[in-house]
C-alpha cells in the first residue's frame, strides 16, 4: 500500500524487542480515515505493544510511522496527542480520588496566568464535549465512586478533550454488559461518522463483526492478514488468530447433578464503604454441577466471594457446606471445610510471587504433616509434592519448582494455582475469573479442568465477567445484579439476550430451572 493521506495512520516494518523477546517483528498497519479498524490477536500477541508505540509510551526498535501521509516521530504521549492520536487503556489510567473533571484536564489544565486552576471554566469546557457526543458522565463524581462503564467514558472523554482524531481503544468491552457494549459501538460509529478514526484492540470476534470496517490479525508479533470482517466468519478469524482451527464451544457431556452440597440462604454483605453489596442472596449448588454466575463487574461478585471465603463479614444470612455453617469464621476454617478457591487476581491473592513454585504449592498446607513435623519444614516431602503437581498439571517449564512464581507466564501461574486448589480435593471449587489474561490454549485447559472436576462429582461455582464463558461452561446460570440473583436458568434454556437484559437490571419473568 502506498503512503498517502487517505490513511490516518500507517506503520511500516515496526520492530520491538524486550530483552530476548521479540514482541513485534516487522509489522505493517494501514488505517483509513473515518473507519473503525480492529486489531485482533491473543493475549501477548503484540497488538497492545504496537499501539503503545503509536501512542509514544514505547519506542520502536525499528520501522516508521506515518500520519496523514507524512513521516512522524512519536517520542512520548505528548507528541502523540499533538498529532491528534489518543488512547483509552485497558487498565484505566484514572486517579481514583480525583473527580472526573480533574482526571480529564490533568496535564492540559485550564489555568490563569499564574498556574492557578480555573475549575469553573474547565468544567464548562468538558461539559460541552459531553453534550456534543451525547455521553452520560457525572463530572463532579470521584472516580472511585463511579461505575466501570462510566470510568471508560471518562477515558474516552480525556482523549476527545485533547482534540484527537485517531482514538485507540484497548480491549474496551472487557468490563461491559452486552447493552453497554452496544452503546459503546454506537458511540464509536458516531465518532467515525464525524470524521474520527478508531483503532479497536480486541480479542472478541463478535464485536469485530458488529463494529469494524477492517481487521488486522497479529499473531506472536507477526502480521498475519488484514480482512474485511463483514465478509469473513468467526471461525476463520479465530483460526487466523490462533494459527490452527479452534473449537469455540466447550465440549462436555450433560450434567448429572446429585444432592445439594453448598447452600447460601439470604446472605447480605456490605462493601468496604459500608454500602450493601450483596442483598438477601440465596442459591444452591449440587454435586456434579457447574453453577455459573453472570454479571457485570461491581454487582457484588467480589463481596460474595469474600463472604464465602470469610475475608469479609456476612451481615446476615447463612452459608452452608455439607450442612455446616461457615459464614463469619476464618479463611482457614473455610479451607478445612473443603472449599477451595481460584482467585480472580492470581498475582494478588493466588500466589506469593517471590516464593518459589514449590513453596506456593504448600501455601495452605505448610503447617501440618507431612510438610511440617514439630514446626520444622520437611523439604524432601515438599519437593516431592510440588514435583507431582507440576507434572500432573503440566506447569511449564517443568523445572520451575525452585524458581520464583514470578518467573512463570500468566497461564502457568494459573495452572499452578489450579493444581494447588484441586489437589485439596474440595467439595466445592470456586473459580473467579479463572481465564482472565490467558491465551486460547490456556483457556481451553482451564475449562477442561472445571468440567473434569464436575464429572468427578464435585460442585463448581464459576464467577466470570465474560458472559460467553459462563454460558458455555456452566450447567446452571444465575444472573447477579445489584447484589441479588435476578434469575436462574438451565444451560439449555439460557439465551444471551434475556441474560444480557437481566445483567443490566431489566425486569423479566424470573425462570428458575
Amino acid at each position, binding site marked *: 500500500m502506498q503512503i498517502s493521506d487517505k490513511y490516518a495512520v500507517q506503520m511500516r516494518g515496526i520492530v520491538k524487542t524486550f530483552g530476548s523477546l521479540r514482541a513485534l517483528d516487522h509489522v505493517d498497519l494501514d488505517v483509513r480515515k473515518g473507519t473503525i479498524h480492529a486489531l485482533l490477536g491473543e493475549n501477548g500477541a503484540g497488538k497492545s505493544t504496537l499501539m*503503545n508505540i503509536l*501512542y509514544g*509510551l*514505547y519506542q520502536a526498535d525499528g520501522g516508521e510511522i506515518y500520519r496523514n501521509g507524512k513521516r512522524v516521530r512519536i517520542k*512520548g*504521549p*505528548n507528541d502523540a*496527542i499533538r498529532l491528534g492520536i489518543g*488512547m483509552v*487503556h485497558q487498565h484505566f*489510567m*484514572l*486517579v*481514583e*480520588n*480525583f473527580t472526573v473533571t*480533574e*482526571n480529564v*484536564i*490533568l*496535564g*492540559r*489544565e485550564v*489555568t490563569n496566568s*499564574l*498556574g*492557578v*486552576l480555573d475549575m469553573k471554566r474547565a468544567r464548562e469546557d468538558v461539559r460541552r464535549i459531553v453534550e456534543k457526543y451525547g455521553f452520560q458522565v457525572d463530572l463532579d463524581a470521584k472516580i472511585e465512586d463511579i461505575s466501570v462503564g462510566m470510568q471508560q467514558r471518562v477515558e474516552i472523554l*480525556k482523549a476527545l478533550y485533547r482534540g484527537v482524531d485517531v482514538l485507540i481503544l484497548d480491549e474496551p468491552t472487557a468490563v461491559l454488559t452486552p447493552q453497554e457494549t452496544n452503546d459503546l459501538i454506537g458511540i464509536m460509529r458516531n465518532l467515525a461518522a464525524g470524521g474520527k478514526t478508531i483503532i479497536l484492540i480486541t480479542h472478541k470476534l463478535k464485536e469485530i463483526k458488529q463494529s469494524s470496517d477492517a481487521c488486522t490479525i497479529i499473531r506472536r508479533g507477526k502480521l498475519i492478514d488484514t480482512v474485511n470482517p463483514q465478509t469473513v466468519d468467526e471461525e476463520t478469524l479465530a483460526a487466523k488468530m490462533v494459527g490452527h482451527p479452534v473449537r469455540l464451544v466447550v465440549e462436555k457431556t450433560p450434567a448429572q447433578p446429585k444432592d445439594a452440597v453448598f447452600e447460601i440462604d439470604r446472605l447480605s454483605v456490605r462493601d468496604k464503604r459500608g454500602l450493601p453489596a450483596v442483598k438477601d442472596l440465596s442459591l444452591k449448588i449440587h454435586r456434579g454441577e457447574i453453577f455459573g454466575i453472570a454479571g457485570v463487574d461491581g454487582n457484588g461478585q467480589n463481596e460474595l466471594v469474600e463472604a464465602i471465603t470469610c475475608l469479609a463479614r456476612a451481615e446476615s444470612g447463612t452459608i452452608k457446606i455439607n450442612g455446616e455453617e461457615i459464614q463469619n469464621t476464618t479463611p482457614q476454617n473455610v479451607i478445612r471445610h473443603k472449599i477451595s478457591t481460584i482467585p480472580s487476581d492470581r498475582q494478588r491473592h493466588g500466589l506469593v510471587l517471590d516464593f518459589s513454585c514449590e513453596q506456593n504449592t504448600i501455601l495452605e498446607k505448610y503447617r501440618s504433616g507431612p510438610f511440617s513435623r514439630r514446626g520444622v519444614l520437611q523439604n524432601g516431602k515438599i519437593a516431592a509434592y510440588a514435583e507431582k503437581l507440576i507434572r500432573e498439571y503440566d506447569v511449564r517449564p517443568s523445572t520451575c519448582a525452585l524458581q520464583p512464581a514470578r518467573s512463570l507466564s500468566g497461564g502457568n501461574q494459573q495452572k499452578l494455582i489450579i493444581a494447588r486448589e484441586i489437589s485439596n480435593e474440595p467439595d466445592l471449587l470456586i473459580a473467579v475469573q479463572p481465564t482472565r489474561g490467558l491465551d486460547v490454549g490456556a483457556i481451553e485447559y482451564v475449562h477442561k479442568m472445571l468440567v473434569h472436576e464436575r464429572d468427578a462429582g464435585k460442585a463448581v461455582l464459576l464467577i466470570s465477567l465474560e458472559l460467553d464463558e459462563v454460558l458455555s461452561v456452566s450447567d446452571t446460570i444465575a444472573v447477579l445484579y445489584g447484589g441479588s440473583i435476578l434469575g436462574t436458568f438451565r444451560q439449555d434454556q439460557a439465551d444471551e439476550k434475556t441474560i444480557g437484559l437481566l445483567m443490566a437490571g431489566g425486569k423479566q419473568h424470573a425462570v428458575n430451572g
Partner: protein
Amino acid sequence: MLNNLTLLISITFMYSAPLIFGALGGVTSERAGVVNIGIEGMMNIGAFAGTAVCYFTGNPWLGFLAAGLAGGLLALLHAVAAVTCRADQTISGIALNLIGPGFALFFCRMFFEGATMSKPIANKLPKIFGNLATQNAVAKNLNLDITAVLAVALTVLLWFVLYKTKWGLRIRSVGEHPAAADSLGISVTRVRYLCVLLSGVFAGFGGSCMTLDIITQYTPTAISGQGFIALAAVIFGKWTPQGAYGACLLFGFAQALTVVLGGGKFAVPSEILAMLPYVLTILVLILFVGRAVAPKEDGIPYEKGAR
C-alpha cells in the same frame, strides 16, 4: 496567668517551627510518591550549614538560605537513589540519616577548630516585632519568632499549590497513579526529583530554625529526633500540609506545656512531663485518627510498562 498563657503560645510556636518545616518537606516528597525517612539527616546538615554560614557572614538570612541549599543537596542523593535507580526508599533514607550528621560534624570540626559544636552566632533570626524595647512580659511573649510566620506562610503556600494549581494536581497524580500521569505526558521523573529536592530544602530550613533561633549554635544534639517527629506529623496529618501543621503545633504545644508546668507549682517530675507530647500523640491517634492512608503509590518506584 496571662503571662503563662502568652509564654505557652510563644514557646509553642518556637518549638514547632523546625518540626513544621520538616513535616512540610515530608508531605511534599510523599505526595509525589517518594518516602522520605531521611528528613532527620537533612535537618541536621541544614542546621549546621545555617549556623556556619551565619557565623562567618554575620547574616542569619544567608544562613537560612544556605541551610535550605544544604538540605537540598543531601536530598539530591535520595532523589537519584529513589527515582533514577529505583532503590529501596526506606534504606536510602536511613543512609542519609547517617551521612547528614556525619558530614555536619565533619565540617564542624574542620571549620570550628576540631570542636563538635560551632561557636555561638551573634545575630539570630529576628522576631516579628524586632527588638521590642519593653518591660511588659506579655508583649515580650507575643513578640514571636519570625520562624513562626515563615512556617505558616509555607504551609499556606504549599496547601495552595497542592490543591489550587496545576502543578499541585500533577504532583498528586504522580503520587497516586504515576502511570496515568505518564500516559498524559507528565514527566514522573521530573516531578519526583523536584519534590524530593524541595523536601530537602524545607527540611534544611527546619534544621536552621533550631540553630539560628532556638539554640544559637550547632551541637551534636541540636537535631535529635525532630526529623522523626516531623515524619510522624506527616502521617498524623494524613499527608496534608494543614494536617501536618496542626500535628506539629500540637507537638510544640505539648513540649511548651512541659516547660511552663515544669517551672511551676505542679510537682511533676520533668521526665514525666517530657513524655507528655508522645503519650498525647498516641492517645489522639487511638481516639481520633485511626487508619492513615498514604498516597497510593507512595514508596513504590515507577517503572514504565511494568505490570
